[in-house]
C-alpha cells in the first residue's frame, strides 16, 4: 500500500500551477484535499508522473459574495464550508449536503472543489452544484472559461475538464430568502456514499412555488437533474400538491443501476419515497395517498 514514485510540485500561484499542468502534457494529477486521491495512489489505481499540490495557493481560498451569488475558493475544506457563516446564510442546502460528505476526520482535509471536480456519481456536492445551478471557473495557460455544473459531468469520474485545466472558483447563484432546502440521503452507514440521495431547493412565494432546483445522486452515472419535476412544480400552490404523481415524475430522468448494495428497482422505490416525504415535510402538505 505505498504509492508509486512521482515528482511532487507545490506551486504557490494559479499561473505556476497552470504552467506545470500544461508542461506535464496529461502526466500530472492535481492534489487538493487528497481524501480520494491518496487511496487511489496507495492502491496504485492512479500512478501519475507528477503530483501538483494546490494546497499552498492562497488565491484558491476564501468566500466572496459577488455577481448575484457566492464565489467559493475550491480548496476550502469541507469542515470550513460547514462552519462558514456566509455560506450558512446564503446556501444552507450546500452546508447540509457537506455534513454528509465522508467523516469528520476526512472533512478536515477534503475540499469542496476536489469533490466537485472528482464527479463521483453518488457524492453529495456535485449533485448539489447541479441542483442549485452552480458553475465552475477554470483556468489553463490557454485562458479562462466557465462551465455550468450540469455540463460538467459526462460519466462516472469523467468531467468536461481538460487535462491542463484547474478549477479556480465555484460560483453558486443566490436563491431568494424564502427558499427551503430539499435534502435527504439514504446510506448504509453515516459517511458512506449514498445509495440514493436527493438535493436541491424550492422557493415559495405567496403560497406558490416560484423556483425549483432538484438533483439526484447515486441514481445514475452522473448527478441527475430532475428537470421534469422542476418544471411541474413551478407555479403550483403548495397546498394540494399531487405528491405521489410528482414523486413519479421526479425519478423519470434517473438511471440507477444494480450493484452489490442495492438493485436499481430498490433505488427507484427509495427515490420516490424520499422525494414524497421530503416535499411533504418541507412544504408541510398532507399526503392523500
Amino acid at each position, binding site marked *: *500500500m*505505498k*504509492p*508509486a*514514485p*512521482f*515528482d*511532487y*510540485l*507545490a506551486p504557490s500561484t494559479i499561473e505556476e500551477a497552470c504552467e506545470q499542468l500544461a508542461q506535464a502534457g496529461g502526466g500530472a494529477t492535481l*492534489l487538493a484535499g*487528497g*481524501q480520494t486521491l*491518496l*487511496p487511489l*495512489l*496507495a*492502491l496504485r489505481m492512479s500512478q501519475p508522473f507528477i*503530483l501538483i*499540490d494546490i*494546497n499552498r495557493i492562497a488565491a484558491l481560498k476564501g468566500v466572496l459574495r459577488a455577481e448575484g451569488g457566492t464565489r467559493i475558493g475550491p480548496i476550502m475544506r469541507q*469542515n470550513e464550508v460547514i462552519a462558514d457563516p456566509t455560506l450558512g446564510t446564503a446556501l444552507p442546502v450546500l452546508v447540509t449536503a457537506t455534513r454528509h460528505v*465522508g*467523516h*469528520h*476526520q*476526512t472533512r*478536515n*482535509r477534503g475540499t469542496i472543489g476536489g469533490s466537485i471536480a472528482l464527479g463521483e456519481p453518488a457524492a453529495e456536492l456535485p449533485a448539489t452544484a447541479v441542483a442549485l445551478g452552480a458553475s465552475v471557473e477554470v483556468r489553463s495557460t490557454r485562458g479562462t472559461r466557465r462551465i455550468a455544473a450540469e455540463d460538467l459531468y459526462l460519466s462516472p469520474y469523467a468531467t468536461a475538464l481538460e487535462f491542463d485545466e484547474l478549477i479556480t472558483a465555484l460560483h453558486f447563484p443566490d436563491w431568494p430568502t424564502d427558499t427551503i432546502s430539499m435534502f435527504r440521503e439514504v446510506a448504509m*452507514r*453515516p*459517511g458512506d456514499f449514498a445509495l440514493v440521495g436527493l438535493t436541491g431547493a424550492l422557493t415559495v412565494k405567496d403560497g406558490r412555488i416560484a423556483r425549483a432546483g432538484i438533483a439526484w445522486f447515486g441514481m445514475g452515472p452522473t448527478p441527475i437533474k430532475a428537470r421534469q419535476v422542476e418544471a411541474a412544480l413551478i407555479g403550483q400552490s403548495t397546498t394540494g400538491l399531487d405528491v405521489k404523481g410528482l414523486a413519479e415524475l421526479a425519478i423519470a430522468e434517473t438511471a440507477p443501476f444494480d450493484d452489490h448494495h442495492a438493485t436499481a428497482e430498490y433505488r427507484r422505490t427509495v427515490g420516490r419515497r424520499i422525494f414524497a416525504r421530503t416535499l411533504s415535510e418541507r412544504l408541510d402538505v398532507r399526503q392523500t395517498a
Partner: protein
Amino acid sequence: MSEHPIRITINGRPHAATVEGRLTLSDFLRINAGYTGVHLGCEHGVCGACTIILNGQAVRSCLMLAVQADGTSITTVEGLAAADGTLHPVQQVLRDEHGLQCGFCTPGIVMTLAALTAGPEKPKADTLLNALSGHICRCTGYQGIRRAALKLAAEPQGSQA
C-alpha cells in the same frame, strides 16, 4: 521521483528530514520519527486507526503525504499523557468505560476525541458520536467507546448510549 526537506513539530519536538514525495505522513511518523502509536490498519483512509492531530484538527495521517505536513505541528497518541504517566482525560475515560479490547483502533479514536474536546467548550454528544463513525473497531461493539464519548460531551446523561 523527487525528494524534499521538511520540518515538522511532533509532540512538541522539532523534526527535520528529507523525504520522497510519495512517502505518506503515517509512514513518516512511524518509520522515520518512531511514533509507532500511529497505527496502520487499512492504509487507504477507511479504518481511522492512523488518526493524528494536525494543527489542532483530527486527520487521517495515511491520507496525507509527509511533504504536505512541512511546517505543521502534529500530536500523536504518545504526546497526550503527562510526563508522570497521568492519562489524558480521553484516555482515562476510555479506560474507565472499557472502551478498548485489543487496542489497535484505540490511538485513532483517542486522537479524534482529544481534538474535539480540546476547546474551552464541551462538544455536543451528537458531534462526538458522529465523529466516531470515522473509526472502525472490530472488538468492542462500540458500546464502551460510545459511553466514553458521552462522558466527554456537554450533556453526558447518555440517553443515546
